[in-house]
């Protein structure tokens, strides 16, 4: 009983490696001017890949062995969930979140710009993961092109600051909310009236066509090159801190606000209605829940959060290009939600921290990791499905 999951995990990893191995050799290159696509076989890449990947695989395997050991010693889910309930109780205490906020805010004084840069990106991904969690986690709607709404929010800001001199990032937030929300509503309306996972495909199409649209409107969007943000539109200094520290504080505030809003919603009749739709749509309908409206609302709200994250991202980097709506980003956010635990707010936070922070830190030591991130995510997902299908902090067991 104990050896079987070990063996099957190992076999699955082997299978993933075997299936992807030929592609690792393959080097595709695309010449934008001639439109010429060429493929070369490059054995060096494979070598680089495996030297880079070995420590990670070994590390992951070690973690897995430790988890098996803990399980064998009675460190079961019960203990994990007792830690979780401790955390939950602490949440209820009045000044807990205030203290946590101040603690996290103090990092902006201590940490250097490099760390802050990473933390800002973690924060932005947290907002994205929390937003996507509304649809896929709480309501059970699969969305594959979430980055499209992220990019949309960013472009709303980038274009407006080009048109209106003196337009700042915080002015863009309400506009992005409006545009993101209505775009979510429009994209969702035709497919949410149907049962089934049409939303997944339609959003995927939205993200890809948005990217093509942006690439082909160079007069407005800067085309492939992208848009730079004028310095007056960027984030100003607060409390006499440096610019990066200020951005960090704003992003931190945004994450806290989003968590608070979601926490409120999740434990209200609205959140319960979302869960009911996820669990059994027909029964939810029979209980008088306006299923289509609720799904549309959930999806629009998650589009709003993505758009806000897009504005913050653009304000932070000072630059935006069409790659912001790439499928890879949608997958990354999806992986964060699944790793953390579908439907769980702390899970989405943890998932985005792990999947952004750790690869970034490791990148300094293992250069190959950024190229093979997606492959790694795939492996993590496979292992997760086997070991802990509800995600790291998913609070409820599957039946």
């Amino acid at each position, binding site marked *: 009983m104990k050896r079987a999951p070990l063996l099957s995990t190992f076999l699955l990893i082997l299978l993933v490696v075997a299936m992807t191995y030929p592609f690792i050799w393959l080097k595709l290159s695309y010449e934008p001017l001639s439109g010429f696509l060429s493929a070369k076989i490059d054995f060096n890449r494979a070598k680089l890949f495996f030297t880079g990947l070995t420590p990670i695989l070994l590390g992951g395997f070690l973690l897995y062995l430790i988890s098996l050991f803990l399980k064998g010693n009675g460190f079961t889910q019960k203990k994990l969930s007792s830690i979780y309930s401790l955390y939950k109780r602490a949440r209820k205490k009045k000044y807990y979140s205030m203290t946590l906020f101040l603690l996290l805010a103090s990092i902006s004084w201590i940490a250097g710009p490099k760390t802050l840069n990473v933390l800002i990106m973690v924060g932005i991904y947290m907002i994205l993961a929390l937003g996507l969690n509304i649809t896929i986690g709480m309501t059970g709607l699969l969305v594959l092109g979430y980055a499209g709404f992220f990019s949309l929010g960013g472009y709303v800001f980038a274009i407006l600051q080009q048109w209106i001199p003196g337009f700042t990032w915080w002015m863009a937030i309400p506009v992005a909310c409006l545009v993101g929300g209505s775009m979510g509503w429009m994209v969702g309306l035709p497919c949410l009236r149907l049962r089934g996972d049409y939303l997944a495909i339609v959003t995927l199409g939205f993200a890809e066509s948005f990217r093509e649209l942006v690439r082909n409107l160079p007069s407005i969007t800067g085309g492939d090159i992208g848009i730079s943000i004028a310095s007056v539109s960027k984030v100003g200094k607060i409390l006499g801190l440096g610019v990066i520290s200020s951005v960090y504080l704003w992003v931190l505030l945004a994450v806290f606000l989003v968590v608070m809003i979601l926490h409120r919603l999740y434990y209200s009749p609205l959140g319960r209605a979302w869960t*009911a739709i996820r*669990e*059994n749509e027909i*029964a*939810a309908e*029979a*209980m008088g829940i306006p299923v289509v409206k609720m799904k549309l609302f959930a999806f629009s709200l998650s589009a709003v959060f993505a758009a806000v994250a897009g504005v913050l991202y653009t304000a932070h980097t000072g630059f935006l290009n069409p790659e912001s709506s790439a499928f890879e980003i949608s997958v990354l956010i999806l992986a964060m939600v699944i790793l953390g635990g579908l439907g769980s707010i702390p899970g989405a936070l943890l998932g985005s921290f792990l999947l952004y922070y750790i690869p970034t830190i490791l990148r300094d030591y293992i250069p190959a990791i950024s190229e093979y991130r997606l492959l790694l995510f795939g492996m993590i997902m496979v292992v997760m499905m086997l070991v802990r299908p509800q995600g790291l902090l998913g609070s409820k*067991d599957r*039946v």
Partner: protein
Amino acid sequence: MSVPLLELKDLHGGYGASEVLKGVSLEVYSGEIVTLLGGNGAGKTTTLSLIMSIIRPQKGKIIWQGTHLNEGTPDGVLARGIVLCPEARRIFPLMSVEENLKIGAYLLDSRREGEKVEQIFDYFPKLAERKSQLGGTLSGGEQQMLAIGRSLMSEPKLLMLDEPSLGLAPLIVEKIFEILLKINRSGVPILLIEQNARQALKIAHRGYVMVTGTIVHSDTGKNLLESDEVRRAYLGE
């Protein structure tokens, strides 16, 4: 017994071009338990789907408390006081018993949720014991009780049940039907869809028998129970 609470008049309906109901007329008066019997595929569930506005009628009328029922959506119909306890129970497996019940009160003022839950626990003490257990881990009988309790949470003026006896042992069925009788005595009219004709007719005031989309018999529960035809077709005698 003057004006019926619910009246179906020559109702036609089905899925796409296919017509399942071919002119169904039926009444439920206030205070009654009415049962609609019929074999597999007769169109019983379809009738309920039409009443709940899950599908649209092709022809005919649904009259509720004297006016046309054209709410268009299930939540609109529920807001008018008709609730459906769906076929195969369909409880929410990953929600606790209590959460399941609270979903039923979705359209109700949320301050009254707690009080309603207690009322349901009075009908089903078994559920009170298992308040925080996940719905999916309940036994079949308990799940059915939960589904009925959940339907009652919206304080319906008409409770419609689609085959509550499905897949349950005779003893449990008897128990559930006893509770249905109790619910009815407290003032809730019931439209009961069943294949288990004997049990249903025992508690029903009146009954209808449906065969391939049309009503072939209607009489009091007692008469139907004694009728030769019904005995032969549904009671296996």
